[in-house]
């Protein structure tokens, strides 16, 4: 039983980091009032650029490149939605589509449709104290970024609630006009959040190609960005909530896989497809039970216009 739990925990923690980073990116952007349905695309370019960069530089540095790439794509979204007050959903969907098709195209043009050549994977850290402790063992032997993913939500939470910039961020997502009349720049705050969100989503993507895998594979991130978006909403736009949601999704998936292998007889009763649907069904049920009313930032999705009051 303990072993089962341990395996479940390990599997959850191993799959969660990319989702956590991307979800945090979503929270950052959306707390400032900019809807970010483009997480999937930002993850994709992050994954791609990190893998490409890792071919010619140390992998940790390449991860930074991936982050910058995510931020660059997010900037397109920012430019359209902040500077030009475009519909944020439209420009988010658009960068997804472009990243999807463009990624496949570039991959094939530069390398081969099979993916980039293999790169040096990020090392895994074994935590000396834990390696022998049952259950807690599961916390050891994850890629370095996984530990960052466990830490970052708390840092983000602290920043959001205990620093000036966090206060301004919360304010600009609720009532940008209030922020503007105090002489702060709404655009600058939102730009910061969108670019920061892009950095995080790019990091999430980079995790996929440098830690989960050792190359960019043509299907990356296979819907994970939309999952992250769901985690943002499920987590009620808070860093810790999104973190919990991301862990929940990963856990649901790990549980599904674990169930299939630890109780083979189960599969004769419950079809695999049903188990596959389980995490999503659970999410739906939980959402239905908890209700979702009015937790979104008030100004989410509304472009800031000085004249409108």
């Amino acid at each position, binding site marked *: 039983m303990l072993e089962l739990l341990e395996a479940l925990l390990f599997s959850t923690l191993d799959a969660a980091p990319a989702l956590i980073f991307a979800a945090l990116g979503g929270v950052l952007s959306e707390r400032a009032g900019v809807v970010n349905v483009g997480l999937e695309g930002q993850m994709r370019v992050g994954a791609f650029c990190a893998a490409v960069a890792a071919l010619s530089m140390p992998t940790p540095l390449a991860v930074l490149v991936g982050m910058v790439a995510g931020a660059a794509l997010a900037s397109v979204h920012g430019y*359209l939605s902040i500077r030009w007050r475009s519909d944020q959903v439209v420009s988010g969907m658009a960068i997804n589509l472009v990243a999807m098709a463009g990624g496949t*195209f570039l991959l094939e043009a530069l390398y081969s449709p099979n993916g980039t050549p293999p790169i040096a994977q990020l090392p895994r850290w074994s935590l000396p104290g834990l390696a022998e402790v049952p259950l807690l063992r599961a916390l050891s032997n994850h890629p370095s970024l996984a530990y960052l993913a466990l830490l970052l939500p708390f840092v983000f939470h602290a920043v959001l609630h205990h620093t000036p910039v966090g206060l301004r961020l919360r304010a600009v997502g609720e009532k940008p006009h209030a922020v503007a009349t105090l002489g702060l720049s709404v655009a600058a705050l939102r730009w910061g959040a969108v670019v920061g969100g892009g950095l995080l989503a790019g990091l999430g993507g980079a995790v996929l190609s440098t830690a989960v895998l050792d190359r960019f594979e043509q299907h990356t991130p296979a819907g994970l960005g939309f999952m992250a978006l769901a985690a943002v909403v499920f987590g009620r736009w808070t860093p810790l909530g999104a973190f919990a949601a991301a862990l929940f999704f990963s856990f649901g998936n790990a549980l599904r896989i674990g169930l299939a292998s630890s109780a083979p007889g189960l599969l004769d009763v419950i079809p695999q497809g049903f188990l596959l649907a389980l995490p999503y069904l659970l999410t739906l049920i939980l959402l239905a039970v908890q209700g979702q009313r009015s937790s979104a930032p008030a100004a989410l999705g509304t472009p800031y216009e000085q004249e409108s009051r």
Partner: protein
Amino acid sequence: MGERWRSAVPSLLSVALALGVCWVAIALTRDAEVAGEAYLQMLYGGLGQWPRFLETGDVGTLTRPLGEAAIKAAILLLTGLSVAVAFKAGLFNIGAQGQMLLGALMAALAGAHLSLPSVLHVPVALLAAAVAGAAWALIAAALKLMRGVHEVISTIMLNWVAVSLVDNWLAVGPLRASVSGGHSISGTAEILPSAQLPRMLGDLSRLNLGFVLALLIALLVWVGLFRTRRGFEIRAAGLGAEAARTAGIAVKQRTAEAMGLAGALAGLAGALLVLGTEFRYPGSLGAPYGFDGIAIALIGNSHPVGVTLSALFFGILRAGGTRMQLLGVHKSFPELIQGLALLFVAGRLVWLTLLRKRRAVAASTEVPRA
């Protein structure tokens, strides 16, 4: 009317610019000649191979590409309308994909397991698909209206549930076609000939009644939204829910109706695929038509006329895009063009500003008004 046309200008310019950018991309990775040739091939593939036709007189060289473009356009039109109708009611339907899946499955079942005369069988199968799609969409609507769950997240979840249940279970398990000798077969049992959408040009093209049906449905949606009381109420509920409620409109009901309609439209898209070309639920629905619907709707300004034009254009592009591969041009170009076009549409205000500047210059020569 002038105003309406002017609002289409950004979309038109966006599509043109996207075509231009992709042309440059091909020209840079290959050369200009290939780029030009590729676009020509795309036209052949989408609108018919006219030179070959004039040379050989083979009608198939015209009708086949046109038929393929029409088939794709019809499906895109229905998923695009699905997204657009939901938009009109203030909902963002990311779930067209899942609704389409369910629709396709039900059409396949009704087509295979009912035996009816053709005049009844096709409508019944279509109806089954519409009902299935609507039911799937109404789950999201119920969650939103009763529990306040945002439809974006619930439809994303429902998409995954649909794929898991249908593609990973029903289509490969209980509903799989029976085959003798352990051979693999993709998907459910083949539908009866009576349930097939009639081909309009016989063997000259796969063009079927589905295309006409889709256009007709677009017309109905347009009339419904803009010419009827119900449509007016749906739009009012979408644009200003509180005001609509104050005015005595049953907002929740209208929202649910719109979402149901959106689901039905997506379900019909699935039915067109099954009854028109695949004749069975093909194991998994490869192309993400449901997601494409979002782009189609947005580029078409969420207006039935705009959606129709945008679906026709991208139908042609998609059908013709295959031929670009003949020149070694990458298979993802049609999607790239679509994505870029949406990106440029997102910059609608940039276009409008540019255009207004020009108009302002023109206007300044007029006599100033009092």
